[in-house]
Structures are given as C-alpha cells and as structure tokens.
C-alpha cells in the first residue's frame, strides 16, 4: 500500500461501506460464472453475491493492489495466483471447510503455482490451440509452423497477447517458455516478426467472431472459444500444437484482507459440488478439473476435442517478472514495423 494514497482515497470514495455479514463480494472473469449458479447459492444460503468482473489478470492484480480488501473471492489464473501468493495478497485456505475438494482431479491440484494447495482451488482449465476451418483449409495443420505460412497471409486470427505470441515462437525453437533470457527473446524475435505480418486479426476477447464471420480460416485461440465454435459447426477442428501448448488453470482464492472469508469458503465448497460444477462447464465449455462433475457431463460435451483434448504437451505459465515488459515492448515494436 505504499503506492499513491491519493488514488486509494479517490477509489475509497466510490467503494462504500464494505461487506456485511450476509454478503459475498466476488471478483471474477467476465463470461465465466453463470448467473444461475450464483442465484442458486443465494437461494440456498441467503448470502447475497455481489459479482464484479475483470477481463485480464493484470486488471485483477491492479485492482486488488489499489482497492485493498473489498473482495472476498477472486479468480486469478495460475501464474497470477503465484505472484499474489508470493506478495502475500492471498489468505490461506481452511481446507477443513472445503470437503468437496475430494471431487477434484489430482492432475489439476498441487501444481507449481501453489504446490501445497494452501491458497488456491482450481475452477476451470483450458489451453491455447489451433482452430482450423476445414472447409477452407485442406492441408494438414499440426503445429505453429503449419499455421504461420505465407500461403495463409491475412487468413489468421490470433490472441492479442504479447506473451502468448512469444511463447509460440519459443516452442517452435524448442526453448523453455518460463525461463526467459534476453538471448532467447532475441532468437524469438525474427520468428515473431515474420508471424505478425501474416496475421489479419489480433483479438483476445472474442477470436471466434472472425472465424465465424468467414474473415479468417485459421486461429490460435483459447480452447473454450474453439469448443464453442465446434459446438456451432463441426467444420471447426481443434488441434493442440505439436511443439507444445500453454495450459492455464484458473483458480479461486481469497484475498488477504477479505471481510467475509467464511462465506467465501462456503461459496468455493458450493462450486465444487459435481452438479454445480457441471452447470459451469456446460455454459463455458472449458476443461472441468472436477472429476465428479465430469462424470455428469453429456457424452457430446466430453467428446468436444477443444474441451478435452486427447493428447498434447501442455505447460502452465510461471510468473516471469520484468521480462513481461520486455515481451510487450518486442511485440509492440514488431507490430508497428509492418
């Protein structure tokens, strides 16, 4: 809190009195928590849920750092949770209050961002992979090199996210994605430079739109977006890039200054119920880390190749500290050079 007191004061003006006993302040991703799930919790417990949304981990961290303890429950991605744990922004979980933790698939727990599972609970997981409009693209596409070919110039949509793009280049070079050095960035640079010239649309919010509209034929996008495309039209195939792909695990966590940690625990345990968790991944077809909930999913949902990819080398992001700024600069530079 050593940062601007003025700003904190100004923010406090808009904040109001804070949570009362029967309220839960939830800060989550937009388009990620179904309203029916929230309503169900309120109906059962009488606890009113105030739901606010963010659209990037950076936004979440910025608000948590500036706004202090106004949230009771937040929903960071793995690498953001890692920084937040290290910076003591999260409160330890009382696992005794979360009996439904037993429902989770062990493949998604105790991962490097929270090895002891003391701070975070997996919510949904997903990956970044390739979507192919098979009506337009008939050649086999297996990895990033197949996507970024001159023949697909101006037929590509990719995430508007500097770290993602650089990660794909690092995979192509066979370099580690989480230990970045100025040398590895220098090697990735010419590849990224070639790639950005081929891309027609950079979009992280709704990359499916350009594919659905027919403006592009190939994409490197979130698996949940790909799953929705596949549900709408089976011509959209999903492939985990052969070189390797980024897997993200979005988690639930309680901020250090939370006013109502009891309600937050109650809400986490509620979300971990198989029938509730199943509602979530039906509305947002990402990978459900809840094994008991997965057992309730329809065969069609489980057959969605984007939600439940059969094979592939998946890796989560780790925090890379100040190299993030170097990456952002590199991509901004290359984009403006075109």
């Amino acid at each position, binding site marked *: 809190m050593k940062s601007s007191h003025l700003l904190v004061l100004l923010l406090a003006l808009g904040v109001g009195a804070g949570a009362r006993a029967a309220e839960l302040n939830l800060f989550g991703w937009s388009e990620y928590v179904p309203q029916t799930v929230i309503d169900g919790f309120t109906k059962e417990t009488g606890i009113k849920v105030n739901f606010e949304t963010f659209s990037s981990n950076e936004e979440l961290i910025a608000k948590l750092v500036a706004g202090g303890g106004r949230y009771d429950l937040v929903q960071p991605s793995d690498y953001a949770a890692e920084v937040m744990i290290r910076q003591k922004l999260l409160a330890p979980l009382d696992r005794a209050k979360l009996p439904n933790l037993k429902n989770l698939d062990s493949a998604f727990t105790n991962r490097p961002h929270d090895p002891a599972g003391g701070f975070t609970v997996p919510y949904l997981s997903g990956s970044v992979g390739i979507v192919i409009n098979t009506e337009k693209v008939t050649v086999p596409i297996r990895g990033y090199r197949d996507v970024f070919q001159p023949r697909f110039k101006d037929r590509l949509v990719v995430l508007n996210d500097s770290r993602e793009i650089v990660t794909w280049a690092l995979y192509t070079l066979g370099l580690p994605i989480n230990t970045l050095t100025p040398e590895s960035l220098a090697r990735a640079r010419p590849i990224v430079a070639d790639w950005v010239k081929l891309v027609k649309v950079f979009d992280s919010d709704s990359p499916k739109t350009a594919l659905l509209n027919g403006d592009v034929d190939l994409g490197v996008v979130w698996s949940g977006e790909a799953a929705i495309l596949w549900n709408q039209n089976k011509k959209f195939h999903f492939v985990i890039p052969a070189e390797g792909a980024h897997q993200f695990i979005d988690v639930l966590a309680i901020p250090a200054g939370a006013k109502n940690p009891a309600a937050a625990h109650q809400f986490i345990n509620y979300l971990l119920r198989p029938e509730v968790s199943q509602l979530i991944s039906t509305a947002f077809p990402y990978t459900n880390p809840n094994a008991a909930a997965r057992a309730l999913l329809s065969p069609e949902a489980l057959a969605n190749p984007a939600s439940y990819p059969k094979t592939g080398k998946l890796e989560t992001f780790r925090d890379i500290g100040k190299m993030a700024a170097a990456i952002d600069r590199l991509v901004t*530079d290359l984009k403006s050079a075109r």
Partner: protein
Amino acid sequence: MRQAAARRAPHAASWRAWLLLMPMVAWLVLFVVVPTTILFVYSFCERDELGRVVFSFTWENYTRVFDPIYLRIFARSIGYAALTTIICIVAGFPVAFGIGRARAAWRDRLLLLVMVPFWTSFLIRTYAWITILKEEGLLNAVLRALPFGPGPVDFLYTPTAVVIGLVYAYLPFMILPIYGSVEKIDGALLEAAHDLGAGPWRVFTAVIFPLTRPGLAAGTLLVFVPSIAMFAITDLMGGARVPLIGNVIQNQFLQARDWPFGAALGVVFLALFATTYWALLRFRDRGEARG
C-alpha cells in the same frame, strides 16, 4: 452616486460569479487538475514487480517515449487523425453549409438527422460497421450482386476500415460547429459579394471561409484530438494489427502493468494537444481579426 454604484457593481458581480462558478471549479480541480497532477508525478516514477508505482525519481520513462518505436507510433497516430480530420472537413463542410443555408423549417429536421446516431451506443454502431464490412457482410453482398462486380473485397481489419470507423464516429463533431458558424453569416454579405462581381470561388475564399474559421477550428479540435487517442475502433475494426498511440497507452495500464510509462506517454500526449490547441486558437483569431 451613479458613478459610485457603477464602481461597486463589478466587485459584487465577481463575488456572485465565483459562487456560481464553484461547482465548475470543484469539478475541474477534482477531475482535471488532480488526475493530471497524479499523471505527471507517476510519469517520473518506477514500477515494482506487481506494477505498483514506486516513488523514486527517474527519467527512464521519457527516454523510452522518445525511442524510435514510439515516435513512429506517435507519427502514425497523428497521420490517421489528420486524414480523418481532412475527410471530415471535406465531407462535413458542404453538409454544414447546406443545413446552415436551408430554410428554417428544414434546418431543425436536418440537424436532427446529424444527431440521430448518438441515440445508439457507440460500440453497437461500431459492431454494425463490422456486419457491413466483413467478408460475408452487406457491402460484399452488394458487390457480388453487381453484374461485373469484383470478388469479395477485404474491407474489415484494414487501415481503410479504421479510417471509415473514425470518420463515421467523429463527422458530427465537425458538422455541428461549422454549422454554427455558417448560420451566423449574414446573407447580405454574400449578396454584396456577388453584386460586386465575385465569382463563386471568390465568394467562398474571401467571404465564407474566413467567416467559418471559428467553426472549422472548433471542429478540427473536436475531431483531431479524440481520434488520435481512439483505441476501440483500431482494435475492433482494424483487428489490432497496427498499434496506434491510444492502444499503446491502454496496454501500459492493463496488460503490461507499466503505469509510469503509460503516464509518460500521456503527458507527452497532453503536450501535443496543448500545442494543437494553441495553433488552432491562433488560426481562429486570425480569422476573427480579418472578419
């Protein structure tokens, strides 16, 4: 007696004027002076790992602003904004002039038409343009229907789409101030010019143009300044392929978590606006001195 009252009057009026101005002054201090000061202070600070602002003095953010990468982006943004402004003037001037010289009964209706788009949210209108310009969109459908029309043309996600979006968004801000100037022109002046043997071109350059300078200056300011900073249109209609300065600044505050650098870009930007404003003020005053 009268003289004494007259001498006291301005004093009393200024006291009351200040009282009336108080809400305005408070608003300015709270939402302009304070944030600008914070921006200025931040621009000399550093960031820590989490992107929190650390109060230690550095020039680094400014040296970075003047790096060729960002200068190029500044130049490109100014180019886009200038092109938008020129198209808005060329397209907006005749419209404004037409409305301003129309019969009174028609004038209000025509003005209403200019303002109708504001009844819908800006983002919805931008998405509407996406539906028109996309490859399987309205415009390409029309082109396909033509007997010798070309194949599908790439409109969306090109620089052209960005300029279309910008011109569409800001054209009314050019039309309205020019209209304000045109409406004030005394018709007798134009008649006099004709009577004295001036051709249409001469009338325009010697009478109409100087008299509409204030409107042109205001319109240019209202179009040029916001279109430099616009980031939503470049993202949605341009496909975020070519960063403009608005996108870079937005990125510093959200994705890159580098508020001090974002603040430094903002301060330079502000200086740029101040210069534009000053230049336009001179342009306008020259017009008024002559008119």
